[in-house]
């Protein structure tokens, strides 16, 4: 499968990769992201899903809304389970994708050791971390990837730590493929999944997935927030593919700081940042600039 086209997306628009009647909240980004993943793989893959929203969304057994084989597994275990699963099916001559679809808590926190293990062993797995920036399924508790100063039920005055950069940590594991993506940029995400699947080994995609209830914003703002994150430069889309790191097309204009929208536009639609003072937003912008410097330098290094 090559690069995705608009025509193809329209065709997939009629395909029910996820059956109706799920338990997802209105405006859920995970539904959007998983559909895009399924489009990228033409619905032919197996999923390993640790505890989280996506273990509830498919609905209740004996029914499921997911149309691919799924193994639901304990919170910390998905990279290890996928390691065993992929080796078993490869031994049996089956070459299709084994995908871990996991949230940020499962990835950045509780399953981090298993993630590191599977990555360093270069297991033939695609790992998608759908990052809604908190433990949403348990009711919005701060995770390792929750943004600095974001309100959650366990950081009522704003989180004091910075967001853990899991994609860069994966890059340092020397795996063949690492990328960031956003549910607001389906063509970028789908292309990344397809390019990743051409590689045998560990592939990691950090998918930004704004969560309306968790971010205290209107249900209709999911895609708007995801897009604003990119357009303000708060979320940088990049791709590392076997030695080469590039800024992805949707983020290229924002290498130039003057072309970025004001960070405030992204912050002000999120109730979780309602308590931020102008100086907090300024600090946040400084952190963002440093992140751009780092990614651009890495793009220079991995030319």
């Amino acid at each position: 499968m090559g690069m995705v086209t608009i025509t193809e997306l329209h065709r997939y628009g009629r395909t029910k990769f996820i059956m109706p009647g799920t338990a997802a909240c209105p405006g859920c980004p995970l539904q959007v992201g998983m559909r895009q993943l399924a489009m990228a793989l033409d619905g032919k893959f197996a999923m390993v899903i640790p505890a989280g929203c996506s273990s509830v969304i498919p609905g209740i057994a004996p029914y499921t809304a997911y149309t691919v084989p799924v193994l639901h597994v304990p919170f910390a275990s998905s990279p290890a389970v996928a390691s065993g699963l992929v080796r078993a099916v490869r031994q049996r001559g089956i070459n299709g994708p084994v995908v871990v679809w996991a949230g940020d808590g499962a990835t950045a926190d509780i399953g981090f050791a298993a993630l590191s293990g599977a990555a360093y062993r270069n297991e033939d797995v695609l790992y998608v971390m759908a990052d809604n920036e908190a433990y949403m399924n348990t009711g919005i508790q701060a995770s390792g990837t929750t943004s600095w100063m974001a309100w959650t039920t366990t950081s009522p005055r704003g989180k004091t730590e910075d967001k853990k950069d899991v994609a860069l940590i994966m890059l340092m594991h020397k795996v063949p493929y690492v990328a960031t993506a956003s549910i607001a940029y389906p063509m970028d995400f789908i292309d990344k999944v397809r390019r990743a699947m051409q590689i045998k080994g560990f592939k990691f995609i950090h998918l930004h997935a704004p969560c309306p209830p968790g971010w205290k914003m209107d249900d209709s703002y999911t895609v708007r927030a995801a897009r604003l994150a990119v357009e303000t430069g708060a979320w940088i889309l990049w791709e590392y593919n076997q030695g080469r790191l590039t800024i992805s097309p949707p983020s290229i204009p924002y290498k130039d700081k003057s072309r970025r929208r004001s960070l405030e536009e992204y912050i002000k639609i999120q109730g979780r940042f309602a308590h931020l003072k102008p100086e907090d937003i300024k600090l946040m912008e400084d952190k963002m600039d440093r992140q751009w410097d780092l990614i651009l330098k890495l793009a220079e290094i991995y030319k």
Partner: protein
Amino acid sequence: MSSQVPLAKQARKVLVGDHAVAEAVKLAKVNIVSAYPITPQTLIVERISEMIEKGELRADYVRVESEFAALATVYGAAAGGARAFTATSSHGLFYMYEMLWWAAASRVPLVMAVVTRALGPPWNIHDEHTDILAMRDSGWIIGMAQNVQEAFDMTLTAFKISENEKVLLPVAVGLDGFILSHTAEPLDVPSQEDVDTWLPPRNPRIPYVIEPGGEAITMGNLPGNDVYHAILKKYMDESMEAAKKVIAEVYDEYSKLTGRNYGVLTECYKCSDAKYLAVSMGAWSGDILNAVERLRNEGYPIGLLRIRYIRPFPEEDIGGWINGMKGVIIFDRDYSAGMGGVLASEISGLVPSSISFEGVLAGLGGFDVSADEFKTIMRDFVDKTEREGLVKIRKYWYIPKIER
């Protein structure tokens, strides 16, 4: 042991318990092994890695980053249709605890060796059964070997038992740390050809397989009604019951292959005319049997009931042997805090109030208990019962004097 089958088809070897387990894993043609070191299990996964390097075993060997991942990996492998094996001990087993339950209730076949060891603190690598007994509510079939030959036989039969459609539960093979794991004993090993005819490759579709492009099966999502949960547990219970018969059938077939006969869930020595019954599990049963034999020579009517499988719980065997006895003495190399010996706790429910009972806690942390000491403890129990009538000692801490 009877031996109608020509032992020429078997090879006589001298192996430590851990290497005997590895030998069985090789003969079972396991597809995927996950490995994480922990004493006294480590020799198993070291030996398996050598076997794979030498080309004696064609398997994926996954050097995982923890025991939690070790079990998660073989669980994923089993869900993907592979025959899978791992091994652990003590703290490693406890680090797996969540996965133990998930693997069992997922109903995929798996085999794991548990080389028993004490739990810290303090750090202690020596033998105790508390670790393996902490698995007992999780849904695993749990055996404890008495010697190296049995550790080998229990491992090989475990695959056949676990993969049986009436069972489909993971099997833990217990062997005492150092006492078996690191002690060389002679054993007979069947040929690969014989094992192949008896143990064909695993059918990956039983009970189900998760594979890309395969049927859209979902394992483990929330049930619509919590009653499903109860139904699934009842199915597990029925499979545990069915396992009793399956274990008997598997050992029956296995005896035709090897000439070795075992009692099924338990073995009772000198029990038919006994008035007193000692109960034990694992390697020290050999020393206890030695003491029983010497007590017999002195006229004490005592027998030894050795538990081979603690899950499924051999209720019928134990209840049957206790019936008609004057007293039962149970040796626990384990301790449930606030309760006492685990075997004593589980078995006490089968001991009528008219029968004398003593639960002995000994060998905790791995200290040696000699046949002489067993003899004294059992003789004292019998003498006391004969002298005083009914004796009920819920727990007796047997702690030898040491220089401090």
